[in-house]
């Protein structure tokens, strides 16, 4: 929290206390301004005449009607500067790594939107070494895309891997409802990789009050906008886990007596999530790319949080356990990168588009063949070959532990085609076959 400035008044008479809010009579208060109630951070959420209602982030347990209330005169803010580099903060921008307080320029969080006519079209390819991403769902700077994963999937590990390989100038991590173990995991992996200086983190763990999480994305994005616009850097923002962010929204709206819509979520869920994700943008120099995690319950994407997310983000990456090869893969059917056509074949090799489509189509033929097999129908020779191909394809390309360049991915795919199929079965343009079909296998 910012150091207290010159306060005019300390109020000591709270009229109404609920689980999450305190109301008192006060003058000259502005909407959304911060305050301290018995030392706890709170924010103005409602003003009716001189009756001001504040939301207390940590909850109101133990607050008395005579507690000190100090208004800080300003909405939540973050001090930005190069002293953000390599640091860990809580939801209020206070250090949790034992380092010094921030001293940079003060910026209000949750700033305005970029004028859409001033955006640039995203065009820089981001490579991760993971074929399920680079080959089938290429990412582009300025994109916003979540991992959809069940809680048991290793999404934090995959995110960390993607971040470290992305080639971004700077990484900003927003942890919401992170378990302490996951928080320590991120710290260790960034330290081990020797890239701590590149990283700034804002962390709310399960030890902290859930409502504080609501500040995390805006803190993260305020820092990201400083890096991208003031320092003209390519910034990668990691947000995990947005489902827990949504849960916090539901808690608040419930405590504010709002009428819930689908899945007990507030009616404004779409706008609330969009406000965060739309901060992803390509600027003339510099960019903000957002990779998030949305945990699913039993793979259900019709729940309000993944559903609204899908309408907002530019695709989604589905993590799934492939029991045939006993590894986690990026599911080629349910994953989608909406911006991939901006780079495929333009920033990558000419055969990328056709190889990608053919690879997935043959994998889907294998899925059909397996269904046939399970239903007890006879398999044709082609069916058997697609099943063999699918095993190789999953092991050598889809598995998330693969780490190769896009050209290697394309060469691998051609090798697999040649291993299992005849030239005329892959229905790829003649000239590409002539150029890339490996004759040795």
């Amino acid at each position, binding site marked *: 929290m910012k150091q207290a400035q010159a306060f005019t008044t300390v109020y000591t008479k709270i009229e109404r206390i609920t689980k999450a809010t305190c109301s008192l009579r006060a003058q000259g208060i502005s*909407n959304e301004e911060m305050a301290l109630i018995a030392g706890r951070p709170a924010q103005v959420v409602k003003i009716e005449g001189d009756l001001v209602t504040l939301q207390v982030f940590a909850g109101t347990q133990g607050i008395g009607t005579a507690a000190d209330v100090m208004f800080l005169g300003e909405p939540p803010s973050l001090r930005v500067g190069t002293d953000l580099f390599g640091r860990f903060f809580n939801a209020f921008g206070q250090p949790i790594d034992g380092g010094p307080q921030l001293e940079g320029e003060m910026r209000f969080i949750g700033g*305005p939107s970029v004028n859409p006519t001033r955006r640039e079209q995203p065009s820089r390819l981001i490579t991760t070494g993971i074929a399920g991403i680079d080959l089938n769902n290429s990412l582009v700077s300025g994109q916003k895309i979540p991992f959809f994963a069940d809680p048991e999937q290793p999404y934090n590990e995959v995110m960390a891997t993607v971040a470290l390989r992305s080639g971004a100038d700077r990484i900003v991590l927003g942890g919401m409802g992170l378990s302490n173990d996951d928080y320590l995991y991120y710290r260790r992996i960034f330290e081990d990789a020797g890239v701590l200086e590149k990283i700034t983190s804002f962390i709310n763990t399960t030890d902290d009050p859930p409502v504080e999480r609501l500040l995390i994305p805006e803190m993260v994005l305020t820092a990201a906008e400083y890096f991208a616009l003031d320092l003209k850097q390519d910034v990668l923002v990691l947000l995990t886990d947005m489902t827990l962010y949504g849960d916090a929204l539901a808690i608040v709206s419930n405590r504010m007596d709002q009428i819930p819509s689908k899945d007990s979520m507030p*009616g404004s869920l*779409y*706008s609330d999530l969009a406000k965060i994700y739309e901060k992803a943008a390509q600027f003339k120099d510099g960019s903000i790319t957002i990779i998030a995690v949305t945990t699913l319950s039993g793979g259900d994407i019709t729940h309000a949080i993944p559903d609204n997310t899908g309408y907002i983000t530019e695709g989604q990456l589905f993590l799934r356990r492939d029991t045939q090869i006993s590894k986690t893969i990026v599911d080629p059917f349910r994953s989608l990168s909406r911006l991939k056509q901006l780079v495929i074949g333009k920033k990558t090799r000419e055969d990328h588009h056709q190889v990608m489509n053919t690879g997935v189509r043959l994998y*889907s033929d294998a899925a059909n063949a397996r269904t046939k097999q399970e239903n007890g129908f006879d398999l044709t020779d082609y069916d058997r070959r697609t099943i063999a191909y699918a095993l190789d394809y999953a092991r050598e390309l889809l598995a998330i532990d693969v780490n190769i360049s896009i050209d290697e991915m394309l060469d691998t795919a051609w090798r697999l085609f040649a291993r299992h199929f005849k030239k005329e079965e892959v229905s790829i343009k003649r000239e590409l076959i002539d150029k890339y079909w490996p004759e040795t296998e």
Partner: protein
Amino acid sequence: MATTGKIVGIVANLVTIEVNGPVSQNEICYVETEAGERLQSEVIKIQGNRVSAQIFESTGGIKTGAKVEFTDHMLEVDLGPGLLSRKYDGLQNDLDAKTGLFLKRGENTPALSKDQEWEFTPLVEKGGRVRAGDWLGEVRENWLNHKIMVPFSLEGVWEIESLVGKGNYRASDEIALLRSADGKKQSVNMIQRWPIRLAIQSYAAKPVAYKPLQTGVRIIDTLNPIVEGGTGFIPGPFGSGKTVLQHIIAANAQVDIVIICAVGERANEVVELFVEYPEVDDPYTGRKLMERTIIVVNTSNMPVAAREASVYTAMTIAEYYRQMGLKVLLLADSTSRWAQALREMSNRLEELPGPDAFPMDLTAIIANFYARAGRVDLRNGESGSVTFIGTVSPAGGNLKEPVTEATKKVARCFYALSQKRADSKRYPAIDPIDSYSKYLEYQEVQEFLAESIEPHWVEKVGYINDVLRQGRSASNQINILGDDSVPVGYHEVYWKSELADFGFLQQDAFDPVDRVTAMSRQRYMFDIINKICRFDFRFETFTEVAPYFKRLINQIKQMNYLEFQSDEFKQLEDELDSFLMERKVS
């Protein structure tokens, strides 16, 4: 004296104002902040001297006691020459004219330049009698004869007391002076204002719309046609291609003006339009697409209340051009975001909620909006139309939700995007069986099609619809019983439907030839499909069916990629005929 007031309450973007004079529902007022910003707001509830208003901007930092000025008018837009090619936000601020990278709160930019000069040519004479909407003259806007009209707000008959001659005038210069029967005078310039929530009704009649509007998309034009002045909607889960389909229609529809309203959607999608439209040719005129397009954009992160207003802003501009006797196409993506904006506000007003917490009158609001589309006969004998197509983003992809259901009641064309089709890359992913066009049932439309295409056209369309249905049930049978446990005829029925699907319904949006198909070509290809589906073929076993039809399909697909009636096209067609002879039962 204008009414003023001061703020006494704030929750999110809803403020309570204590006023000192008369106010009206939906009146616009401006809230002054300490920093000197003027935030546009709209009255949405009045109780005694307390007024609730929604602020169209973020409300952080606003204090009670802030001064509010009322304007005595509802939310209005500027209508006049210079609208074409512009990019507006939901309140008609010119986005290009805004300063800085970020949208600054309270920065209002004029929609039209009042100083720009236009060459005016009068179309009427001094002394003539006119009514609201009548054409006084015209100016040249890009390629278009933009009519300068008697303000829509005038009532009764007016006499033209003076009218300027042909020449260059600034948009704000007086063009005409009108006098009413009771001696009232009205000065008219090139820009008039109109409240967006009211429909412009300065026309003689609103007859049944009957003339199909060509979009170049085969599954729409042939199987589920929309008409000029018609309404349609496109529901679909995320990733099923709603926005892509709308972009295809926007680029290829045979209309004079296209208005794209991006309601609460992704900014990068709008950036795509900004980048491409000045470069891409209009397929009919060869001009750049941007020259016939107006984009109204309120992306998902822009203020919610302005998002709600944006569809009305776009509709009003559409109606304005319709009054010039033009064909206008209005596309809104996505109307669900508009409905959600209504929900957020209704929630804050603590109204009793309807299903899924949407306002109770959602159905009426949607119906009212769709009713503003239509073909109209102007008083001078010309006619114009506003065709409206909205997308719907059903929560969880489930079509049984309030916005989809309310829209289904009023929109006449239903283009259901199916996840299954999108997953199997069958684009456009419009489900041929679930989708429909009510216009095909209109007698006026049937007569027009019979006359302009051929007498039995509607029957042919019905026949292929049946083929598709039979194909689906045959496919179900085959999947349940197994390939060899059903009669070979089942396979033939199934593959005929696949032929209609692959050869006609599917279209490659990224191929320069296939992306848009003229009606003459659609008719030609549809006849081929019809012919094949009516043939009986000879097959010994089911294993012969799929390879044979795959060959036919490939042949037709290749034809679709070629210039119509080119030598190569004809050669493929000849080959197709000989393939057909191989197995056709004579």
